[in-house]
C-alpha cells in the first residue's frame, strides 16, 4: 500500500474549468454543462514561450500551476510525474504527415516539442525546478500508472510530488484509430505527511482481482471519464469535491484496478 496527502488540485476540461468551478459540478451542486473551454494561456509561460508551445503543453502547465497555487507550496521544490496516454497528438500527426513526403521538412520546434516530456520540460523551465521529473504512459491506465509512480516517489523519496495527467484528442486520421471525446487535464500535489494544507489522505493498492471500476452518476461526466484516458481519475476528484470518505476503483494496466481509499481532512 502507498499513502499520500493531497494538498492541491488543478483541473481543465470542457465544463470543468478550474477546481473551484469543478467542485460544484463534481459534488453534484451544479449541472455538468460541457462547452468549449476558454483558450489556454497559462500565466507562467511568457508570451514568446507560449507561442512556441502546443495546446497539450499549455494544458499541463495550466493544471500544474493551479494545483501548486492551491497547495501553496514552492513549485521549484516539487518532484513531478506527467502521465499521458498518447503524448502530443497534434504533433504526432503533423510530423507523420511531413515524413510521409519524399523530402520532409520537419519543424525543429515541433520536433523538440514532440518528446513526451516536453510539457515537463516547459514546466520545469517555468518554475525553475531542477527536481526530478518523470513522464510516462500506461495507455488507458496512464493516470493509474502515474498515481503509482507518484505515490511511490512520495513514500520512497519523502518528497512532495506534482502528478499531472493530461490527454488531448488526435486530429484525423489518427482520431479514428484512437478516439478521444475531449481534452482533459488534472494535477494533484501529493505530500508524504499531513500539513495545514492537506485536503485528504489517499491510500492506494493494486488490486489482485478484477474489479468493477468506479463510475460517475452524471451520464455526461461519466462520458468524459471514458472518453479521455486522463479523465479516468474523475471518481477520485468527485470524492474529493464531495469531501466524503470513499473507496474507489480506478483502471490499472491489463484490466487490473487500483483501489483508492480517500479520507477527507
Amino acid at each position, binding site marked *: 500500500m502507498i499513502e499520500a496527502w493531497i494538498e492541491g488540485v488543478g483541473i481543465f476540461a470542457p465544463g470543468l474549468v478550474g477546481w473551484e468551478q469543478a467542485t460544484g459540478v463534481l459534488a453534484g451542486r451544479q449541472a455538468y454543462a460541457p462547452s468549449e473551454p476558454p483558450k489556454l494561456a497559462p500565466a507562467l509561460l511568457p508570451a514568446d514561450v507560449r507561442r512556441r508551445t502546443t495546446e497539450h503543453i499549455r494544458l499541463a502547465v495550466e493544471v500544474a500551476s493551479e494545483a501548486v497555487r492551491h497547495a501553496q507550496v514552492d513549485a521549484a521544490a516539487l518532484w513531478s510525474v506527467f502521465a499521458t496516454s498518447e503524448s502530443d497528438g497534434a504533433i504526432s500527426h503533423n510530423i*507523420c504527415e511531413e515524413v510521409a513526403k519524399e523530402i520532409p521538412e520537419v519543424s525543429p520546434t515541433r520536433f523538440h516539442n514532440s518528446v513526451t516530456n516536453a510539457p515537463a520540460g516547459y514546466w520545469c523551465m517555468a518554475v525553475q525546478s*531542477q527536481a526530478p521529473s518523470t513522464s*510516462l504512459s500506461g495507455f488507458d491506465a496512464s493516470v493509474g500508472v502515474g498515481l*503509482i509512480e507518484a505515490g511511490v516517489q512520495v513514500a520512497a523519496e519523502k518528497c512532495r510530488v506534482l502528478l499531472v495527467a493530461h490527454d488531448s484528442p488526435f486530429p484525423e486520421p489518427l482520431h479514428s484509430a484512437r478516439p478521444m471525446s475531449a481534452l482533459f487535464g488534472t494535477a494533484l500535489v501529493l505530500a508524504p505527511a499531513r500539513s495545514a494544507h492537506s485536503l485528504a489522505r489517499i491510500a492506494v493498492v493494486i488490486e489482485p482481482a478484477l474489479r468493477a471500476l468506479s463510475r460517475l452518476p452524471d451520464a455526461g461526466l461519466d462520458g468524459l471519464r471514458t472518453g479521455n484516458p486522463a479523465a479516468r481519475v474523475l471518481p477520485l476528484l468527485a470524492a474529493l469535491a464531495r469531501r466524503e470518505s470513499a473507496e474507489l476503483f480506478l483502471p490499472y494496466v491489463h484490466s487490473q484496478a487500483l483501489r483508492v481509499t480517500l479520507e477527507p481532512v
Partner: protein
Amino acid sequence: MTPLVLTSFTGVNALGRGSAAVLEALTAARTGLVPCTFEKVQLETWVGEVAGLDDLRVCERLAEFDCRNNRLAELTLEQDGFAARVAQARAKYGPRRIAVILGTSTSGILETEHAYRQRDPQTGALPASYRFATTHNLYASTDFVRRYLGLEGPAAMISTACSSSAKVFASAWRLIAQGLCDAAVVGGVDSLCRNTLYGFASLDLVGRDACRPCDAQRGGISIGEAAGFALLERPEQAASHSGVALLGYGESSDAYHMSTPHPEGAGAALAMRRALDCAALAPPAIDYINMHGTASLVNDSMEDKAISTVFGTDTACSSTKGWTGHALGAAGITEALISALCIQHGLMPGCLNTRAIDPSFTSKVLLTNHSGAVRRVLSNSFGFGGSNCSLIFGAHP
C-alpha cells in the same frame, strides 16, 4: 540505498545480438555504424541499425503487436537466456510480484509513418490493417513484454527522451523498496524511424560521418536503435546473479532549454552528485564514467565540464556511442549493459572513431580501450526537455 543485483541482463543493438556480440565488438574496437539506407531516408548520415528486423515477426500469440519496436523487444528477450531467467523468477515470486518498467521515445511510430503513406486518397483514412494501441501507443512495448513474459506486477512506459531507459532503474528501485514488487524487469526499446532521423536533422544535430564523441571535429550524432533488459532483485533473494549491482541513481531537470543542455552542465552535474549521494560514495570510488557523449557540440562540451566539476580531472571517461550510435530512449539501458560488461570483464572502452580529443576538455577522456579492474561505473543519460539521469553500477560478490 540498498543495492539491487542485476540477476541477468541482455541487449541487442548495432553491435549484434546479446552480451557476447557486444563485448566482442567493444574489445575489437569495431563499430556497428553504417551509412544510412533505412527506409529510403535521404540524409547523408550514419546509423546504428539492428540487422534482420525486417525479416522477423513477433510470436503468433501476440501477432497484433507486430512492429519493428516489438520485434526488437522479442529478439532481445531471447538473448542470453533472459526470458528463461525471468521465468524462473516468475515461478519463485509469482507473476504479480515482478514489475515491468521500460523506456522508449518513439515506440512503434514507424507503423504510423507507413500508414500515412497509404492513406485513402479520397477520405484520408488510414489503411484498415493499421493497429494503433499495440504499435504506436507509447505503452505498447511494455504491454508486449509483460504479456510475452507472463508478468502481472506494476508496469509503466517511461518516456523522457534520451534518459527514458536510465530512469527505469530509479523507478524499479523505489517500487521494490516500497514493497510493491520483489523483482523488476527494466529496460528499453527504441527503433529507427523517419520521425527521429528527420527531426534531429532539422535541429542540425545529425553528423555526416560515424559519430566521434569528444572529438575536436565532432560533427553530430549517429542515430541508433537498440533494446536491452535487466532483471533486478534484492541480493539476498537472488539465487545467482551477474556479479553486478545497481548502487545508486540520480535524477535532475535542467530547467534551461527544450533541446539544448545547460552550457555549464549544471543539471548533469546535479544528477551525478545525486547518484553519488544515493550510493553513499565519494567521487574517487568511481573507476570509469560511461558518458552520454552523443558527439553533438554542446552535449559533449557541457558533459566534460560537469564531469570535471564533480570528479576533477582524473576519472577515466568515454562515450561508447561511436560503437552503437545514439539509441535515444534505449540509450540508458544499452549503456547500463555496457557498464555491466565493463565491470565483469575489466574493460574501459575509449571513444571509437574519435581522432583528437577536444582541446578545451579537462576531464580524462579515453581515446583507446584500457583493461584493468573496474569496480564501479557511473553511466550518464541526458535528454531533451532537460531530463537527466545518472546510474552507478558496481561489482557485487
